[in-house]
């Protein structure tokens, strides 16, 4: 602790943003980042703790105080090097990580006022690197060791595993089902929160580390896990995500104008339907949209609908406190004009004679005793049914793993919900096959996917340094 006692330690800079009235009319990024002066000033606030709690809060254990120290010294290139030792895609994590529940919540300064804006600083240096176009290939990259690894899926888990394995000297090929890499970052999270140009730059970096990305390759269809072993891959990493949308199972769910959030967001983000007809994929949006759910996906769908010109209600069966979305995203959504209706659950969707959505019948809820997740269980209030007019309904109540791979792979064990069963190192029930990210149980964020992918990489490296694995059966 040097001269810090002379400064006001309690305040952090607030993120510069596009004003709400302006941003609801465009798809440009909402958060604009910090200026260099703000970043340096914020970095000066860091106490450089001897036993930094922040590192332990970070699922990939970035040396946070060290990169902050470099920012303070305006050595931005060195700051990015520090981050990239642990995180290959910081421009992404700097934008979408829930820092407020990870590194920032344990920052010692939180006790004195506001924690260091670690996420904003991470974003600052990664944007600096992208802007100055230096994106150096990490010095850590080792010589090729003549072993090859197949990575399935190019979301955060796949990109992390591929990047790290490549740095260790493995020859890595990513197989991606869609025509664009990036996983949820590309097809799910909207442009205004996760600009696709940024995703593309981060993917480019992974490619420059030596990773080959084969798009339009659905494993389980064009090649099976067994085929991959037969092709000579020494290990396989599965990062195929949880892409299969849940529906409500209520009447009217197949009416025209009812979308799963996945379809809605895929049309808008991956296929760029917000630029229809310049881009050819259409989207049907009315004047009144109801989004069902309370997570990040629901917020993204709601804010996208606003930008497409609709009024938007989000209905959620618990209260705002229980909503799984990031606080920041709920705040942004409300500021933009998304209306929340809490303690409300959908009952039935009504349509007109052409099969188009007309209204949604809902029922009011109250909170009862906590359930197994510790959240209070919502209970219907009998007779409290009411109707809301709408012409678009978006269902954002979560997703399950896509069974394409497990169904086509004998011996690959899943739990009763279809998630791949793995040990703490990410090993699946098949020798030589690892998995991480949303395809394994209890993972649901970009950084958790990355953290577990890193663990798997360490284990893969350990195994491959010893023997050459072969497929069982």
């Amino acid at each position, binding site marked *: 602790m040097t001269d810090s006692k002379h400064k006001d330690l309690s305040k952090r800079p607030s993120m510069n943003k596009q004003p709400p009235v302006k941003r609801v009319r465009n798809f440009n990024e909402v958060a604009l980042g910090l200026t260099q002066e703000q970043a340096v000033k914020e970095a000066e606030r860091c106490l450089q703790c001897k036993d930094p709690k922040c590192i332990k809060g970070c699922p990939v254990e970035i040396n946070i105080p060290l990169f902050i120290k470099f920012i303070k010294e305006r050595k931005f290139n060195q700051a990015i090097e520090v981050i990239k030792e642990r995180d290959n895609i910081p421009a992404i994590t700097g934008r979408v990580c829930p820092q407020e529940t990870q590194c920032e919540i344990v920052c010692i300064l939180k006790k004195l006022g506001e924690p260091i804006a670690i996420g904003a600083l991470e974003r600052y240096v990664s944007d600096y690197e992208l802007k100055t176009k230096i994106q150096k290939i990490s010095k850590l990259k080792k010589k090729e060791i003549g072993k090859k690894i197949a990575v399935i899926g190019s979301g955060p888990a796949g990109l992390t595993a591929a990047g790290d394995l490549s740095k260790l000297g493995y020859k890595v090929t990513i197989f991606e*089902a869609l*025509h664009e890499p990036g996983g949820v970052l590309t097809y799910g999270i909207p442009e205004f929160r996760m600009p696709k140009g940024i995703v593309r730059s981060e993917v480019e970096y992974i490619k420059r580390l030596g990773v080959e990305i084969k798009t339009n390759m659905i494993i389980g*269809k064009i090649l099976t896990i067994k085929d991959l072993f037969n092709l000579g891959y020494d290990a396989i990493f599965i990062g195929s995500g949880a*892409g299969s949308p849940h529906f409500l199972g209520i009447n009217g769910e*197949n009416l025209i104008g009812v979308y799963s959030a996945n379809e809605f967001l895929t049309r808008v983000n991956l296929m760029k339907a917000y630029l229809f*007809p310049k881009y050819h994929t*259409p989207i*049907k949006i009315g004047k009144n949209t109801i989004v069902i759910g309370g997570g990040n996906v629901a917020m993204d769908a709601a804010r996208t609908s606003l930008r497409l010109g609709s009024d938007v209600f989000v209905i959620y069966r618990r209260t705002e406190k229980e909503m799984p979305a990031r606080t920041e995203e709920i705040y942004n959504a409300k500021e933009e004009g998304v209306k929340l209706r809490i303690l409300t659950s959908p009952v039935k969707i009504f349509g007109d004679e052409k*099969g188009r959505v007309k209204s949604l019948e809902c029922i009011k809820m109250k909170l009862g005793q906590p359930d197994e997740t510790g959240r209070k269980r919502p209970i219907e209030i009998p007779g409290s049914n009411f109707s809301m007019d709408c012409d678009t309904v978006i269902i954002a109540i979560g997703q399950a793993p896509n069974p394409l791979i497990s169904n086509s792979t004998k011996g690959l064990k899943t739990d009763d919900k279809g998630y791949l069963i793995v040990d703490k190192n990410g090993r699946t029930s098949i020798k030589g096959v690892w998995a991480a990210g949303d395809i394994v149980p209890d993972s649901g964020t970009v950084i958790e996917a990355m953290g577990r992918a890193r663990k798997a990489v360490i284990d893969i490296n350990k195994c491959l340094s010893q023997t050459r694995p072969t497929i069982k059966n």
Partner: protein
Amino acid sequence: MHIILDKKELAPNVKMLKVSAPLVARKSKPGQFIVIRISEKGERIPLTIVEKDDKIGSLAIIFQEVGRTTKELGELRKGDHILDLVGPLGKPSEFRKVGTAVIIGGGIGIGEAYPEAKAHKAIGNRVISIIGARSREFLILENEMASISDEIYITTDDGTKGHHGFVTDILEELINKKIKIDLVFAVGPPIMMKAVSEITEPHRIKTLVSLNPIMVDATGMCGGCRVNIGGENKFACVDGPTFDGHKVDFELLIKRLNTYIAEEKISCKMH
């Protein structure tokens, strides 16, 4: 790169392309389809694999130029390439020796009926084909179908060739003649598949139909292709595209196929 090796006009606005896709060709089985995207701004559209050639590593696809994407596809020439091609998608059809299989193809659906008929023939079933179109000039793959059928019937809506009427007229006739039918496979406009299923249901003839809902990813990720089968929602891209015709909610399928009619008009104007 998926180069177009050959291009043929089969009927007005109906074209066949032979595309290089060695790996997909090797893996694909009858009943499966591919998704293609032909430009950076383009849509992803599903197309049935009509035929494959393992030696050349090629796939044949047939399409009717109805929307913007199929029109643009029709403008591509031999030697051009297709930007994105993914497959093989969907469940392969199952073929068992059952006896007599009636294969019904309507319009462009004849292209999809062809690989089914061929596979039934190969496994030793007696194949009765019924193919129909609006008019004589829209009949496709007539010779190909004839070459693998034990019997073939042709219908046109306007009577310019074969029976003046619908494929269902012939089907009813066969049933009335007490010809033993062990399986019906129908592919074509939803209204035709619906009519076929309604005819066979009282006779308890197993009837399979190949559905064509709107798709986006075709990997089971969006649910846009959902169809209702016996009261249960299924994703046609991964659970289908072939389903029990007696269980399909055709009304729903037809309504959902009309989702983007207004947008398609705008899109076609842009073309």
